[in-house]
């Protein structure tokens, strides 16, 4: 039996995205390379001078992904001399495809700039996750990869921006060097040999392009993993510059510097003007040059025959040029409007503050806050974003819900671990400092609590643990919070869900940490015992550091004391045991904890076992 019985849908999406990009790139490239309406622009930007020669030189040309390095002559090449033994001056002419590369990379950029916004529409994703329209678990798992998709699009935008900028710099150079009076309106330069830097900074596309590159530079350098882990603020504030980027992008494409020819029927490219103005260059346009290299080995005698075969037209009027309609507006307006609409909706919904009912201090620096809000619905496993203006006007922090509102009870709650300055100040505002050391009973002092706003709820992969028949949930330290909401839901009513067996493994460093949910676990255990389903929830608690002498959680938690192990879990044995007792089933594996545990579980989930059990690992991605 293969490891994956079902195909990995994430791979399909990646393939579709990749082929869309390649298709767009290829199509646009060919359009600008061979399309007759771009013939004159193509020539002006120096392409045909070298490109047909490169075709004919053949074996001397290395085509590396359209950046050709050819051995070319430095003067205007004459094909008749191609076979003679003139000394060739090696010159790297990889700049010969500026127009095609810049437009092709622009179309790829269009696609990616529009797709990159979609994974950030979190409300939409949460809705899709929970709606009945997405019944398949495989499709829901795709939504887990949304952040990876966003990063991939981002990296693609960087790479193709680099290509686009380089190609346009070459175009600027060619515009200024190949200035000719015949095509004044086609050329972006105003006179011959105009400094390309002036072209760059005095035209709308040039200036907006330069600003966009700088904004992109700021955003990319602040998005590296090291910065996100150490100074999340820098990442968050610079990433919000994306709005500036999109505004500049809209202006950038409105410049209309690259034009196409509108009157192809009355003025076919390469035609002869009886007035004497030469529209025909030394080389025939590329789409006719296929005949050229077939006849080439024989020498230059063939072209006379060729000119008889091809119909040489007479120009009836001057060529007219017009700028393209900015396609980018069509590409990005949809996702941008969707994203802005969602942000607006979230802002309006979170305008009303919550009512804090109680604040409980737990050991090991954990605070529990219980609150109510009108019309707030959440599924177990979802998270919310807290915003407290009295603590910080600009910062928002996500916390997983540990208790969700049900039909009978509207209270919901979060557990916060006090790690940084935001949580420290939040705790100081909620609890007077004198009572922070002791574990106190909740007291209602609603008039003293600061105003708290919440945004959400947003989805996470942990919601799926109720949809498997057997689930393995592994929590490390404070990572138990998503599973706490699952346990609370099971306490309320377990029958509506597909879950029939839950393996709950909780690894902590400090024995006092178990008291955060010791009551919940004991009550749940008792409930299932009463209902004659003692094997529904299998609890294993591990104390990974054995410095403390205390080996029991508390006298009243006997059910948990007998399930407490000292030392780290032995995952391989655990997986074997689960596989043996659940033969042939699909077990959902969920992990919320340190990366090392996550990696081990992922590896073990992909391994085969002899009992026919399949483990599906569901990955959550935090920063």
């Amino acid at each position, binding site marked *: 039996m293969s490891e994956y019985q079902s195909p990995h849908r994430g791979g399909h999406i990646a393939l579709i995205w990749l082929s869309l990009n390649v298709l767009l790139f290829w199509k646009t490239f060919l359009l600008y390379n061979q399309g007759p309406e771009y013939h004159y622009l193509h020539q002006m930007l120096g392409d045909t001078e070298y490109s047909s020669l490169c075709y004919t030189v053949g074996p001397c040309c290395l085509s590396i992904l359209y950046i050709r390095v050819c051995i070319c002559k430095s003067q205007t090449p004459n094909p008749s001399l191609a076979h003679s033994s003139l000394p060739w001056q090696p*010159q*790297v002419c990889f*700049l010969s495809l500026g127009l095609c590369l810049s437009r092709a990379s622009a179309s790829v950029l269009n696609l990616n700039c529009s797709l990159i916004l979609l994974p950030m529409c979190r409300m939409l994703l949460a809705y899709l996750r929970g709606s009945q329209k997405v019944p398949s678990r495989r499709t829901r798992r795709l939504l887990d990869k949304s952040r990876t998709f966003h990063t991939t699009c981002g990296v693609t935008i960087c790479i193709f921006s680099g290509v686009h*900028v*380089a190609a346009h*710099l070459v175009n*600027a*150079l060619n515009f200024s060097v190949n200035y000719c009076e015949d095509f004044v309106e086609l050329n972006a330069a105003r006179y011959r040999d105009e400094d*390309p*830097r002036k072209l*760059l900074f005095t035209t709308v596309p040039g200036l907006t392009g*330069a600003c966009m*590159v*700088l904004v992109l*530079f*700021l955003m*990319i*350098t*602040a998005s*590296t*993993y*090291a*910065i996100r*882990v*150490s*100074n999340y*603020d*820098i990442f968050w504030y610079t990433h919000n510059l994306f709005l500036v980027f999109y505004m500049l992008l809209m202006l950038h494409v409105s410049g209309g510097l690259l034009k196409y020819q509108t009157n192809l029927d009355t003025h076919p490219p390469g035609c002869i003007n009886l007035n004497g103005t030469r529209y025909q260059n030394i080389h025939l346009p590329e789409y006719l040059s296929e005949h050229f290299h077939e006849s080439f080995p024989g020498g230059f005698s063939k072209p006379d025959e060729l000119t008889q075969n091809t119909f040489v037209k007479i120009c009836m009027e001057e060529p007219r040029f017009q700028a393209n309609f900015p396609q980018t507006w069509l590409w990005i307006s949809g996702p941008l409007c969707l994203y802005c609409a969602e942000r607006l909706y979230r802002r309006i919904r979170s305008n009303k503050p919550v009512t804090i009912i109680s604040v409980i201090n737990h050991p090991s620096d954990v605070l529990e806050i219980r609150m109510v809000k009108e019309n707030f619905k959440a599924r177990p496993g979802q998270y919310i974003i807290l915003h407290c203006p009295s603590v*910080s006007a*600009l*910062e928002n922090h996500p916390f997983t819900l540990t208790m969700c509102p049900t039909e009978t009870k509207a209270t919901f709650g979060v557990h916060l671990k006090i790690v*940084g*300055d935001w949580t420290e100040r939040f705790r100081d505002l909620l609890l007077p400092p004198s009572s922070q050391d002791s574990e106190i009973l909740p007291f209602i002092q609603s008039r003293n609590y600061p105003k708290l706003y919440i945004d959400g709820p947003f989805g996470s992969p942990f919601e799926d643990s109720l949809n498997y028949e057997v689930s393995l949930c592994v929590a490390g330290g404070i990572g138990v919070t998503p599973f706490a909401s699952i346990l609370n839901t099971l306490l309320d009513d377990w029958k509506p869900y597909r879950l029939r067996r839950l393996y709950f493994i909780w690894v902590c460093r400090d024995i006092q940490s178990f008291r955060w949910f010791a009551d919940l676990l004991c009550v749940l255990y008792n409930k299932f015992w009463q209902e004659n389903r003692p094997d529904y929830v299998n609890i294993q608690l591990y104390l990974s550091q054995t410095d403390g002498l205390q080996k029991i959680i508390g006298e009243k938690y006997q059910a948990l004391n007998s399930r407490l192990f000292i030392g780290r879990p032995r995952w391989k044995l655990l997986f074997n045991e689960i596989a043996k007792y659940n033969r042939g089933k699909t077990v959902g594996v969920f992990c919320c904890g340190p990366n090392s545990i996550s990696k081990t579980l992922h590896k073990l989930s992909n391994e085969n076992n002899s009992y026919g059990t399949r483990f599906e690992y569901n990955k959550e991605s935090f920063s």
Partner: protein
Amino acid sequence: MRQIEWAMWANEQALASGLILITGGIVATAGQFAQWYLGTYSIAAGVLICLLEYPRGKRRKGSTMERCGQKYLTRVVKVFGPLTSNYYIRAFLHLGLSVPAGFLLATILGTACLAIASSIYLLAAVQGEQWTPIETKPKERPQVGGTIKQPPSNPPPRPPAEARKKPSEEEEGAGVPVGGPQENPMPVTDEVV
């Protein structure tokens, strides 16, 4: 708001700008454009900047992620002392290095990026940040038998620690039942041959 450490961001930017300068310089030199010697200059400047910025400095609070293989360069950069640890000097150095590359079209992007990096370094310097090298702690080799001072002289069962004249050893302590001194009513001999 917690103090943001700007130096880390400036470091990423400077490293990226160094790479952009090198790329632009290669293009300019290989294409033999006008003033291509500026391209060569920007390759050299880019290499210098990359070498200087590769070792990441230590954060004030918390652990810092090291770049792969940075400890060799850390030793080199540490040698220069205040020249490299002071961010004012770095800011002005980057500003100065970026100016000549601005005259060539191919390297103008590198100039702009390096100028931004230099301004962020200036901001970091104003906030009093400094580059401190990340020291690798020497690995503590587990001392095998380091805690064994003297092997026990009595065979088990041994009297408890208070009654023993010599200090107890860790390895023997785990499984041995600690009981009172035992006086056997009959003489006991070892029957194992």
